[in-house]
């Protein structure tokens, strides 16, 4: 097992293998639909139609995708350094504080383009802060990052309930949420972007943070593959001992990586808070931090893979709502199953079909070699 698996062509490695894994995940999900007594093909039709059928639907799909690009990037950056950040959920939740503070402070006096950069800084600051502690604890005290980030998710949830019910709630209001922001705390929609393609965005909250997400994806690509820090992160992820011999300071990289990861997760909060609800509510993250794990695994931790993977999950979220509407016995919890199956097949069982695919390619290679030989003779 010194060479685990034979080297495959790039398009097989990054295209075919993930696609086969994804297909199996969807097949199993189809079985669940059958088990419930519904037609999987009909469900697939509603899924596609619900996600792409109208400009408004596409707007919603991309709105969800925006969120998942942020959380997927967050998980991916940590993966590159060999760290598993399960705490995206908590970091995004706490990142919301930064967004809310910026909006509550300036929304009435400043236009959105002044508030937005401050909100970005705030979300990154608070998200990074929430990831700094687990990173620091791993680097300096040796506590396992997975366990600490899980614990920090729960601590974040309690903290946010406390803040929203006691501190950030306006006086006299019962609902655990901040006040609704004025104009300055509301991001402009990207209706012009869709209208280029002749689509009407309608009520969909597809907003400018989508562009920020794309920029962040590009930034992550530059960071990981074009900077010294990224090189050090990847070295550490590949082989911590090699990194140590090369004089890379593990603890420093661990802390910095976690803060970048947390900052990216925190930026996710911009999309629902400033882009859709215009206030911070309880549980606004709604599991997006965990979807990020599936997105990063499916996208092979590369921004070029994460964006399509995030859009796929956007399709699942938006189309899933349509399925739930058309086929009442399949509620939105179906998405949670699919998400779990994707994580299982694209993550934990990613090598299940690899031997078979490798064998198929080896056979093809042999046959091609044989043909060349026969021609030569």
């Amino acid at each position: 097992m010194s060479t685990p698996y034979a080297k495959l062509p790039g398009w097989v490695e990054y295209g075919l293998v993930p696609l086969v894994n994804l297909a199996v995940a969807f097949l199993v999900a189809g079985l669940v639909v059958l088990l419930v007594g519904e037609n999987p093909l009909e469900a697939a039709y509603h899924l596609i139609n619900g996600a792409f059928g109208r400009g408004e639907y596409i707007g919603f799909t991309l709105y969800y995708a925006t969120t998942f690009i942020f959380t997927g990037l967050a998980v991916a950056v940590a993966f590159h350094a060999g760290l598993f950040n399960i705490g995206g959920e908590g970091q995004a939740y706490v990142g919301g504080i930064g967004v809310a503070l910026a909006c509550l402070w300036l929304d009435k006096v400043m236009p959105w383009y002044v508030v937005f950069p401050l909100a970005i800084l705030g979300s990154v600051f608070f998200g990074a802060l929430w990831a700094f502690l687990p990173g620091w604890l791993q680097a300096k005290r040796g506590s396992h990052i997975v366990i600490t980030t899980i614990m920090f998710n729960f601590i974040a949830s309690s903290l946010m309930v406390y803040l929203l019910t006691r501190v950030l709630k306006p006086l006299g209001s019962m609902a655990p949420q901040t006040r609704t922001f004025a104009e300055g705390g509301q991001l402009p929609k990207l209706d012009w972007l869709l209208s280029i393609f002749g689509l009407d965005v309608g009520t969909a909250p597809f907003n400018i943070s989508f562009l920020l997400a794309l920029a962040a994806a590009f930034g992550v690509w530059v960071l990981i593959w074009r900077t010294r820090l990224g090189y050090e992160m990847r070295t550490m992820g590949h082989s911590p001992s090699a990194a140590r011999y090369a004089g890379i300071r593990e603890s420093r990289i661990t802390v910095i990586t976690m803060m970048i990861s947390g900052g990216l997760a925190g930026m996710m909060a911009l999309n629902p808070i400033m882009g859709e609800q215009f206030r911070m509510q309880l549980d606004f993250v709604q599991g997006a931090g965990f979807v990020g794990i599936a997105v990063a695994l499916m996208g092979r931790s590369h921004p070029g893979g994460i964006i399509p993977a995030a859009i796929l999950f956007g399709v699942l979220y938006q189309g899933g709502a349509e399925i739930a509407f058309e086929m009442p016995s399949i509620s939105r919890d179906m998405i949670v199953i699919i998400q779990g199956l994707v994580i299982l097949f694209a993550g934990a069982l990613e090598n299940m079909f690899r031997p078979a695919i490798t064998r198929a390619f080896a056979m093809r290679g042999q046959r091609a070699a044989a043909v060349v030989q026969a021609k030569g003779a």
Partner: protein
Amino acid sequence: MDFFHVLVVLLESTIRVSVPLLFAALAGLFTERAGVFDIGLEGKMLGAAFAAGAVAAVTQSVWAGLLAAILVSVLLSLVHGYASITQRGNQIVSGVAINFIVAGSTVILGEAWFRQGGRTPALADGARFQTISLPEADVIREVPFLGPIYADLLSGHFLLTYIAFAMVPASWWVLYRTRFGLRLRAVGENPGAVDTAGISVIWLRYRAVICCGILCGFAGAYLSLAMTAGFVKGMTAGKGYIALAALIFAKWRPVNIMFACLLFGFLDALAIRLQGTPLPLVGQVPVQFMQALPYILTVILLAGFIGKAIPPKAGGVPYVKER
């Protein structure tokens, strides 16, 4: 006397809420001691609770429910085992996947089969566990001090509660006094040595994972057949993660696990009790703080500020023979 009475009530509810934690944490003890990390305790418990509630509602038999719970939980464990032992996949990823698959499918299947918004039908008395009164509880209650302790604290629990506490010495005995236990612990520390001795690492780890499944099955059955009469969607509500925290807090040792679970259960019971009542000196403690306390304590412990929690050495690493 009033304080004493409050304390007895508080401890009684501590025992009640710590039982599922105890089962799940002991379940995690078996796999993690064998070198397989398991953050899927939550999912297994939830799946087991659903199976127990559904089967008990259909068959009207509490035993069939318990059996179904164990079966489903063991099956989920085997999926985790297949991914992390045979396929050498990432154990954390596999655990996360199981949690999601179960969280979604219990609601979808429950709604499809029973149409009660993700619940299973409420169980009649015959189809769920009943509390057991220890002999002469009513007579002894009149004895001052010891009476309430015996009658209210020790008596009047479910069969599963007594099993849970009996599992603590039982697990200790299995892990520290049997050949199986010795090998199981060895495989979590140095699988290479176990392999050299001619013992199958794979089969040993699979057996550990099955033990975990059985215990998680009990945890789930307790939730839907004893604590409440039927399954409610998402009823584990993070208990699997608290159990994981308790397992770490206890430094992967059976007797410590019992105390850790009782501590976390006590915090839970206290949080409910203290809701809205101010404490002397500190004033009113926010409920949220009490809820977060088990996690905060675990983080502090993990960081090595109260002793040092050292996980099994080979934990999380798939065993590759040809190296």
